[in-house]
């Protein structure tokens, strides 16, 4: 009961969040059942391709929510969040590689194909343990979390802020991109990790496995949202917004600003890592391209399009932009990057509060009453 009432008070005044969670619940029930139990020729049938595509969108949405936590609420514009996503993905990929066992092209029971190809004789130390699912899942959380901790500790302690921090995060993801491209790193070089077979003994190509991973993604997004929502409605959330709006003031009323930034940054990186880990089994590959700086910038565009400092807006933006991307890259492949650039300009110039802000504006005009202004994301009952 205590937990229930906690969730209730938290979600009070959060129409967008309730909508998001309701949609997720509907997706969890409808999409897998329409995929598995409805005949293929029925109009209501959802293909496994669509199911996987939706699952991918959900992972992106979780990633966007994670970025919104640090950017929208704490004002840290990270242009390297793709790195945490990719690291989570690599941790999952390593587990999936070990699951292949001796079914690889070279039939080596221990080594993944690319290591045999490179004439390696034994598994590097950092691949040990990844045959165990729990260990891999622990790494999904620990590796991005630890990197964020070290990077954030150094950066925030030195009071690096604003555009300098953004450039450093960009450099971080670029450095990782270059490192992971190298064969000697032992992560499959530019081919990355692929050709996955099983997860926990279930065939990855099977429709039912796909459905379960889809459900897991939806649940991860729901829990990720709830965790972020809890954070931003707590006093810590108010401190974090205070840091965004007046960092010096926050410091002089006695908060150790660096610790708060670091904490939020690490939480966000962990969520991004989880999103990456769920993404990899659905797309079937993870390669250094995921570290590319462009990915992280696209991610920022999703959040901006959806609406900063709303959390659910970030999820909306991620799905909307990625749907656009899927459509454009199929219909007019040459135009996608132009469309993305134009989108960014249009959003920053004409709707700084994103789709959520636009919708609220329209809503306000229609009602024209003294509607309680909820355009600022931080409104929540103080008592």
């Amino acid at each position, binding site marked *: 009961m205590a937990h229930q009432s906690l969730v209730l008070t938290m979600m009070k005044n959060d129409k967008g969040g309730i909508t998001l969670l309701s949609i997720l619940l509907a997706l969890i029930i409808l999409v897998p059942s329409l995929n598995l139990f409805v005949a293929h020729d029925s109009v209501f049938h959802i293909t496994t391709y669509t199911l996987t595509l939706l699952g991918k969108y959900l992972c992106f949405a979780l990633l966007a929510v994670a970025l919104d936590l640090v950017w929208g609420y704490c004002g840290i514009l990270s242009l390297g969040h793709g790195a945490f996503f990719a690291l989570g993905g690599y941790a999952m990929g390593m587990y999936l590689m070990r699951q292949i066992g001796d079914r690889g092209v070279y039939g080596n029971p221990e080594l993944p194909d690319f290591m045999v190809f490179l004439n390696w004789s034994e598994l590097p130390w950092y691949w040990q343990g990844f045959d165990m699912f729990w260990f891999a899942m622990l790494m999904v959380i620990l590796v991005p979390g630890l990197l964020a901790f070290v990077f954030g500790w150094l950066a925030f302690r030195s009071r690096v802020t604003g555009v300098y921090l953004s450039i450093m995060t960009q450099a971080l993801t670029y450095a990782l991109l270059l490192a992971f491209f190298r064969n000697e790193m032992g992560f499959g070089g530019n081919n990355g990790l692929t050709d996955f077979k099983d997860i926990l003994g279930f065939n990855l190509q099977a429709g039912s496995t796909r459905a379960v991973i889809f459900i897991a993604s939806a649940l991860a997004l729901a829990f990720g949202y709830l965790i972020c929502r809890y*954070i931003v409605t*707590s*006093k*810590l959330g*108010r*401190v974090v*917004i*205070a840091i965004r*709006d*007046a960092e*010096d*003031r*926050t*410091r*002089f*009323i*006695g*908060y*150790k*600003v660096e*610790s*708060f930034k670091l*904490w939020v940054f690490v939480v966000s990186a962990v969520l991004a890592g989880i999103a990456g880990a769920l993404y990899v089994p659905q797309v079937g590959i993870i390669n250094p391209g995921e570290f590319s700086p462009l990915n992280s910038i696209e991610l920022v565009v999703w959040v901006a399009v959806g609406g900063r400092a709303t959390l659910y807006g970030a999820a909306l933006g991620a799905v909307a932009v990625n749907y656009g991307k899927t459509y454009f890259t199929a219909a007019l492949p040459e135009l996608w990057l132009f469309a993305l650039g134009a989108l960014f300009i249009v959003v920053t110039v004409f709707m700084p509060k994103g789709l959520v802000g636009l919708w609220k504006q329209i809503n306000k005009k229609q009602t024209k009453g003294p509607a309680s202004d909820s355009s*600022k994301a*931080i409104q929540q009952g*103080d*008592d």
Partner: protein
Amino acid sequence: MRELDRLRNVMRRDQVFDFVQEKRLPFSAGRHSVTPGELDISHGTILYVENISVSFDGFKALNDLTLYINDGELRCIIGPNGAGKTTMMDVITGKTRPDSGVAYFGQTMDLTCMSEYEIAHAGIGRKFQKPTIFPFHTIFQNLELAMAADKRVWPTLFASLNGEQRERIADVMEIIGLQDMRGQEATSLSHGQKQWLEIGMLLMQNPRLLLVDEPVAGMTHQEMDKTAELLTRLAGDHSIVVVEHDMDFVRSIAETVTVLHEGSVLAEGTMQEMQTDPRVKEVYLGE
């Protein structure tokens, strides 16, 4: 942690080893310099600033500044632009480290080796020149954030207000006269109201010493009177240092006035004495 701090202090690269250095503790020696939370004002003086010098790229912002503030005192500090008033506040609150000299809070706390948040916890509150409040928080939330509490990360995440704390916030809202606007976002306040809110935020920290930088800049006369009343009411329970340009305002509140000039104290005394002092006239009032 204290051992670690001590070690860090020994390893500091901007000074010679601690044990080589001649200790210049004011009055009571022998106690460790950093004892947060134990404000010792048994000698009646709350702030010691002694021989502080700060230079930026060769420009001496503070030049051998020495200043004492008594407990419960309301002190006004005036001086022409560039006299070092804001730099002095930066040194006291830990934002700027002095090149030489000491600053003690009470007998025991060495402010020059404490960080901003430690100094805030020890009981020094600071109001900036430009009103700095949290624009997208309500008045209530602004005060709540400033309130003296466990301000580490995890306790903050799970913090909730109890009745006593609510009362305290309500009290402060009354003191600063914003009790009817508790749910309003601070960005909607007028300039004067923002200044009061910031003073209220300082009060929420239960500070012993308030540093107030130009509280009446840009205020109307009514607002100025109200601010003067607010500050004189707070003096006594708190020690207050006001840096101000507005002479009428200083005259209306000042007990003791310190005149700064080129980074050091030029004269100190009552407002009347200052107005007749020829040196002060020359650098400041006479123009």
